[in-house]
């Protein structure tokens, strides 16, 4: 492949990925409002378009035309930079996510992934760990007590849960023997006894999956761990002083992070783009269908949990992360390593 085709293919992929991701973000918000509405015996959005399907567009227009208020007491450079940092790092992680196998489009053989790097997982971990700055700086630069407390809570929580999150992934890495997300998915092909797919969750990583799930909720500041924006005590946490598009950027970053987490869970534990091992062949080979289906199920679970569970207290959150989740993740890692070592 020549340099020109490479650049052209990359640009096309990036544009498609960004458009799809932003649309997915908008419609995850719609899905959440709809599902939580039905859980609470309400209708959710119904007025704009059929089933309220055009609601995200209306919201977008509203955010753009709202007055962009900058309170006089903020530290301006960081106040403006913080939502950008949050959104940039939330969108960057999509670049290494593989959504399907190699395909041939117009004579060009290319993977369904923006960039296939051999340390893909580490890049995602690095980018998400930098995303903390957006939240922390928003809280600090707003110069308001609610924002500061929200920012402090968020950064402490994210740094703490990052450890159990990272450790829960190491078991999968030991099984696959690679940091490349594509190779991790490829290692999950085939079945046990002909009917259970060889996904990592069925390869003894089920505990790791639940550790990952719990840590991911805390990392994305979602209920039951949404202490940084607990509205009963902190108004809205770190984004209290933000309005219009700046607020919308935090909002989009949160949902983009949810989607990244869902992608990662699908790739690492649920077999990536590989479908169920039975059914007609054309259904097995649908390029992106299974990947999107798994992500949809994961996001639905996210929303379901939000509609069901109450919020933790902050000391409970910290004690749970450090005294229960972390030892459990270490135990899982040691056990996995032992089994792999004994098998080989």
């Amino acid at each position: 492949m020549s340099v020109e085709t490479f650049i052209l293919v990359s640009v096309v992929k990036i544009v498609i990925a960004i458009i799809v991701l932003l649309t997915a973000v908008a419609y995850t918000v719609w899905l959440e409002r709809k599902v939580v509405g039905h859980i609470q015996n309400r209708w959710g959005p119904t007025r704009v378009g059929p089933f309220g399907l055009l609601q995200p567009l209306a919201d977008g227009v509203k955010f753009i035309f709202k007055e962009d208020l900058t309170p006089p007491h903020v530290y301006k450079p960081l106040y403006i930079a913080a939502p950008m940092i949050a959104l940039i790092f939330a969108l960057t992680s999509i670049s290494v996510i593989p959504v399907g196998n190699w395909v041939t489009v117009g004579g060009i053989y290319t993977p369904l992934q923006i960039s296939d790097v051999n340390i893909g997982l580490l890049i995602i971990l690095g980018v998400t760990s930098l995303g903390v700055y957006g939240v922390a700086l928003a809280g600090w630069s707003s110069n308001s007590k609610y924002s500061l407390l929200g920012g402090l809570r968020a950064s402490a929580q994210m740094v703490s849960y990052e450890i159990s999150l990272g450790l829960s992934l190491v078991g999968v890495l030991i099984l696959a023997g690679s940091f490349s997300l594509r190779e991790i998915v490829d290692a999950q092909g085939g079945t046990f006894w002909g009917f259970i797919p060889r996904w990592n969750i069925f390869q003894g990583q089920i505990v790791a999956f639940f550790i990952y799930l719990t840590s991911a909720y805390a990392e994305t500041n979602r209920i039951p761990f949404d202490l940084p924006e607990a509205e009963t005590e902190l108004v809205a946490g770190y984004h209290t002083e933000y309005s219009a598009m700046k607020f919308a950027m935090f909002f989009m970053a949160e949902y983009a992070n949810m989607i990244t987490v869902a992608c990662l869970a699908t790739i690492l534990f649920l077999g990536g783009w590989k479908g169920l091992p039975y059914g007609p062949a054309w259904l097995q080979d649908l390029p992106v269908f299974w990947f999107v289906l798994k992500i949809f199920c994961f996001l639905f679970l996210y929303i379901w949990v939000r509609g069901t569970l109450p919020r933790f207290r902050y000391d409970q959150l910290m004690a749970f992360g450090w005294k229960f989740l972390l030892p459990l993740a270490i135990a899982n890692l040691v056990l996995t390593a032992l089994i792999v070592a004994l098998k080989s």
Partner: protein
Amino acid sequence: MLHLIIFSVFGVICVAGAVNLLVQRHPINSALSLVVVMGALAAEFLLLGAEFVAAVQVIVYAGAVMVLFVFVIMLLNAGEEEHTQGSRVARLIGIPGMLVGSLLMAWVLLEHSGTQSVAAGALPGPPKMIGWLLFHDYLLPFEVTSVLVLIAIMGAVVLAARPESVQRKKEG
């Protein structure tokens, strides 16, 4: 050529970040400049082909250590520093001395060390090789370092925890 351009861009960013770190009056700006320095260094590692080291540089230094720095600055609500004029000796001798020193060092490195510039990707460090080195060739140093870090952590906990007698006095 491209390699040289990318190297120079990140080198300039790195040095500019380091200078900004010293010049800024507000601790949080200094801390963020340090994050930029770490990021630029990671890019330089990547340029050498050491992708694992680059990723770890970002995850550990930029993503964890510096977050804790920022966290502490936020928690203490540290204000702007007050800059004094500085001593005249420092300005008269310090700055020329630093310039002469760095020029001397650059000259020695360029002319007399016998090292050459490194091509892009010349020092590959795939994760597997680093793992092999750490857990096979250098196992003893690795374990000794682990124990050292553990001792440091326990020391920090002991120093940070209030002595029991003080606690009892407050409660009683």
